[in-house]
């Protein structure tokens, strides 16, 4: 099974739009995952039919029993996350700050602290025209997005590990959700845009990706908005020996079709759709090549 993650570093470069189109265009059997669990959008383009929902339990959260608390303040002093605050009659834990380390429970001399399980999200398993989709919803403000990404990937592998391709819509950034997304993938497609920010963030996300040794490929979205920056990206990719396998033009049809809730390749032959067809063909070649190497 080929595992391909679409990532970007910078947010809003077009990862989801491209992932949805690739799901339509790439051959073989598929399983899909939306690993941008903070702000999952792939479902908005693939009209999934929900099969089941499972709760996601994040790290436990400390809860202080006010009837038992003797207000010694040991928990507050030892908490490294400033999650314990002095209340009126007892200390209390701010669940948004609590990282579940349980140090407060350990140091409490009267055992007033218990670590309680909390649901911080849900994992959804759905059907789409191109295969099953695993997506998730993190409770806004909750932590553990890296852990949730891991669970999403695990669900996809466990349920649909026999598919030809595991196609992942990744999160922006370079922190734990991204690292969790790209660990164990065969290839990453980095979608960038022609801007100083796009190139800067491309360089950083490639540096992180290299630590996991996947095949790295790049595509430029909205490439016709700044010819100079496209040149900069091309020069950098060449120097780094990274194949640039697609250039997608700015095309108002993209927003129009996102508003309709369908992939850009599902209607007509717009300039963006044609460019993504070329990207998909190049990607197919690259992935075939990878398959042969195994």
């Amino acid at each position, binding site marked *: 099974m080929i595992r391909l993650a679409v990532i970007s570093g910078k947010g809003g470069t077009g990862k989801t739009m491209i992932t949805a189109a690739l799901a339509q265009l790439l051959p073989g059997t598929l399983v899909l995952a939306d690993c941008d669990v903070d702000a999952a959008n792939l479902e908005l383009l693939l009209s999934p039919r929900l099969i089941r929902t499972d709760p996601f339990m994040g790290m436990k959260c400390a809860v202080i029993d006010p009837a038992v608390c003797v207000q010694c303040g040991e928990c507050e002093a030892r908490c490294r996350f400033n999650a314990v605050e002095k209340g009126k009659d007892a200390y209390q834990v701010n669940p948004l700050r609590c990282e579940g380390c349980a140090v407060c429970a350990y140091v409490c001399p009267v055992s007033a602290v218990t670590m309680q399980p909390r649901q911080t999200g849900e994992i959804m398993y759905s059907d789409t025209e191109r295969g099953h989709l695993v997506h998730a919803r993190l409770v806004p403000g909750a932590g553990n997005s890296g852990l949730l990404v891991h669970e999403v990937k695990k669900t996809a592998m466990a349920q649909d590990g026999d598919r030809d391709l595991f196609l992942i819509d990744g999160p*922006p950034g370079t922190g734990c959700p991204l690292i969790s997304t790209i660990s164990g993938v065969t290839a990453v497609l980095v979608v960038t845009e022609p*801007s100083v920010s796009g190139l800067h963030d491309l360089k950083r996300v490639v540096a992180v990706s290299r630590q996991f040794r996947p095949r790295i490929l790049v595509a430029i979205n909205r490439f016709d908005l700044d010819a100079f*920056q496209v040149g900069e990206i091309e020069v950098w990719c060449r120097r780094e020996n990274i194949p640039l396998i697609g250039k997608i033009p700015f095309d108002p049809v993209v927003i129009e079709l996102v508003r309709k809730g369908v992939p850009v390749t599902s209607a007509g032959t717009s300039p963006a759709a044609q460019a993504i067809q070329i990207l998909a063909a190049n990607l197919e070649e690259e992935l075939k090549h990878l398959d042969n190497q195994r």
Partner: protein
Amino acid sequence: MKLAIASGKGGTGKSMVAANLAFTLARTEPVTLVDCDVEEPNLHLFFPAPATITDVTVPVPVIDEASCDHCGKCEEACQYGALTVLQSRILFFPELCHSCGGCTLVCPKGAIHEEQKRVGAVSVSAPLPDLKLISGMLDTGSPHAVPIIKAVKERAGGDPLVICDSAPGTSCPVVETLDGCDACILVTESTPFGLHDLRLAVDVAARLGVPIGIVINRSDGKDQETLAFCTDHDLEILMTIPFDREIAAIQSRGDILCQVQPEWQKAFYALFVKCSTLAGVER
């Protein structure tokens, strides 16, 4: 006053709004601009200037193998699976460690002490006479953004006017950025993606009790659904920036709209006045 700029969805124009707000305000008063998107910081690209860089470190456990008797208490105490005790040695996985100090506390032999490990850096510069830029940068491959965000916000300390540019999303980096801010601007775009993620961002800000206002960026005039959502939730539209290829070009080459087209300064100053009202600060 401390303002945050966040979005839910990435690439809606947070940094653009932050940079232009700071540029406009710095013409008349001291401003501290804080780049809290430490995974992909970009503001320094818009304000190039020589910077002082300092390391951000977190404490991680170091085990004295001579005193350790491999009792396994540390592994049991670690909620993150960062320690594995084998028969004759201990494996430590730094990328899983949250630096809570639990292992050090529970070790009956006192065999664990902590040492500082670098996870990123803070850079401070003065690109304009009245503008201080504080940027956080997470080391590539390091997973935990929160300690760096804490460090940059600490560096801004009690500066009179602080603007914090957040990472996208709705999880811990955003919570850390918004925490303690007096008001928050949510930058959105009028697409189903923009609206979907705006809902989540509004939820996070509400949980933290931070007052919010909305900026619609790259508007193509089809903002009805976003406007309806804002009316339903009693959210004020503080500013609408139209889609314009020239603005996109200015932004993509790393220039500042308010410098290239000074007529925009008035609109960004008006945005600031509205934010002050949201924050309950008289201007």
